[in-house]
């Protein structure tokens, strides 16, 4: 029972089918001047259209990358470099490391970086964003939805504010893609990162949306591919896979995500009802339909995950021990979740493949795990 879809997703069977011919038969280099390569190029174009359609972009605004981390690095470092001077970068304390990493790197290289905090529900105070922008335009990088809590930021409002102050707006939409409707025609987003493996495509393929006219330095130099915006021979099978997964996610967005949200709500309500001293982390009114982050107080996350794994359930935790560090996740800490709850935070993230039987199974077995660990705990 896989309930860790914010970490990665299973590859859709349709996606695997779509990819196979490009390993077996159509393995040519799309740049070649012969039919081996020539027949391949059009499938890249189709995939580009499919990805663009998913977010309301023009195909020419889509650049394929190797992963979400590359998309984020390209967007943030590329925008900073393209400006040709030291700039101000505004981001949040709860971003994924793939955003915080490049931001902190740029800070070490003389750029000004402002990290906005969040409240106990994981939400931003937009007055603080305005304050940060008041001194002059900036590059703003704010995630669409948080990977740990599922909290969704008001991207429309944020994009409008950034536009008002004349800044460049990047959003890491890795978790939002396929779970929320996204339309860059309606929201003034300049740069948007996405990745395949959260979308039932394989790992190793991502994309960056670059609004026409956005100044961006090239991250991978040395190739004419992707219109000179990203060198390197195209990863054809994976690009085709991402295209296929994008079409599927668009197709299933309305129907399946409603069903997923219902299952998530059932799981959440079930666990809160059967396990005492249990709280939900994050703004429940503005949240991804597939995610719930629950703190089981007085017990520790890694121990919970190992017991869950023993009964065949895969989930995730923001506890210190699972991260390999000694402190709970930076997101949980930024929200000021008390330590009694932080170490026992557990994330369940569903997908369109999740069934009601699986949710019922977790609701049935979780209380015993919690009870067992609490019997061991000196704090109960």
């Amino acid at each position, binding site marked *: 029972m896989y309930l860790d879809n914010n970490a990665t997703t299973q590859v859709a069977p349709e996606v695997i089918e779509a990819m196979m011919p490009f390993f077996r038969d159509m393995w040519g280099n799309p740049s070649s001047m012969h039919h081996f390569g020539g027949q391949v190029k059009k499938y890249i174009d189709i995939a580009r259209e499919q990805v663009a359609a998913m977010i309301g972009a023009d195909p020419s605004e889509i650049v394929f990358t190797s992963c979400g981390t590359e998309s984020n690095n390209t967007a943030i470092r590329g925008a900073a470099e393209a400006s040709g001077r030291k700039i101000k970068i505004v981001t949040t304390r709860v971003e994924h490391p793939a955003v915080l990493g490049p931001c902190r790197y740029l800070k070490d290289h003389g750029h000004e970086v402002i990290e906005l905090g969040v409240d106990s529900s994981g939400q931003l105070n937009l007055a603080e964003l305005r304050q940060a922008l008041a001194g002059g335009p900036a590059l703003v990088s704010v995630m669409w939805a948080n990977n740990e809590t599922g909290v969704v930021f008001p991207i429309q409002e944020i994009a409008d504010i950034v536009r008002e102050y004349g800044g460049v707006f990047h959003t890491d939409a890795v978790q939002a893609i396929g779970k929320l409707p996204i339309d860059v025609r309606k929201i003034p987003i300049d740069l948007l990162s996405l990745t395949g493996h959260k979308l039932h495509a394989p790992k190793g393929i991502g994309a960056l949306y670059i609004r026409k006219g956005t100044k961006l330095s090239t991250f991978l130099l040395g190739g004419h591919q992707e219109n000179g915006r990203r060198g390197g021979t195209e990863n054809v099978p994976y690009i085709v896979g991402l295209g296929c997964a994008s079409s599927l996610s668009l197709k299933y967005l309305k129907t399946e995500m409603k069903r997923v949200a219902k299952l998530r709500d059932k799981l959440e309500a079930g666990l809160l009802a059967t396990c005492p001293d249990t709280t939900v982390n994050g703004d429940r009114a503005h949240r991804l339909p597939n995610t719930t982050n629950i703190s089981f107080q*007085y017990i*520790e996350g*890694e121990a919970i995950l190992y017991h869950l794994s023993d009964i065949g359930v895969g989930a995730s935790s923001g506890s*210190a021990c699972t991260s390999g560090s000694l402190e709970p996740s930076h997101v949980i800490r930024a929200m000021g979740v008390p330590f009694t709850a932080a170490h026992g935070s557990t994330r369940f993230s569903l997908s369109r493949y999740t069934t009601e039987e699986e949710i019922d199974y977790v609701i049935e077995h979780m209380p015993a795990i919690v009870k067992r660990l609490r019997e061991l*705990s*000196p*704090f109960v």
Partner: protein
Amino acid sequence: MWDYTDKVLDHFRNPRNVGIVPDADGVGEVGSLACGDALKLTFKLGRDKRITDVKFKTFGCASAIASSSALTEIIKGMTLEEAGKVTNQDIANYLGGLPEQKMHCSVMGREALEVAIANYKTGTTAKKILAGKVICTCFGVTEEEIERVVRDNNLTTVEQVTNYCKAGGGCGGCKDDIEQIIQRVRKELDAKLAAAQKPAKLTVLQKVKLIEETLDREIRPMLKRDGGDVELIDVSGNRVIVSFRGMCAGCQAAPITMKDVVEAKLKEFVSADLTVEEEKS
């Protein structure tokens, strides 16, 4: 997932001796919710002054639970004197080893045991008290505790110290202090080792080699910090002739202080009969 041994997983899934011994003779509590793991150990002694009953309660990850369970199995039946000698390495070994990043779980076990024994012997508090200078404020780790894990486990890097007792694992502001503690303890350990290895009667070759080693370990790092160096020119019987280089060569203080320092170190680590002379150029 962590690379846990089957024994760790067994003790996690089927922890032995869970609970609290009623009317315990000794109680030891370490860790906290903030730290991410905590252990309460209670034991009772029999008429023969051996531990007849011991139980634990642990908040923490799989290896914290397994380490606590292992500890209770190890010390059951021991006298307090025997139990007092149990090290964190013994706990890790009992479990067939722990991942390096999880060694602090075994240290937590040893600490709880110490507190519980002290609680029995002196009637002092059952909670761990921070004695001495706190180095890591994030996790409340003292200088003494860091020295202890470095000594007990022969540690050499700050990263290892963090893995073994969490110090330095929070904001990281104390890493320089930890590095200094490691250097100091290592020096003691190395010196002890060197002193233990000092043979009774040295051949000329052994003597020269030992003098060079001592200069390398005890003198040069000190001089190099100030841009200086020392060279061994000759050894004639018990007369050691050296020459100071770099910044040290023209140093006014050199004839008095450096010669004395070098002589003292060589007397300590090589032979008490040595005298040091400085070669005049």
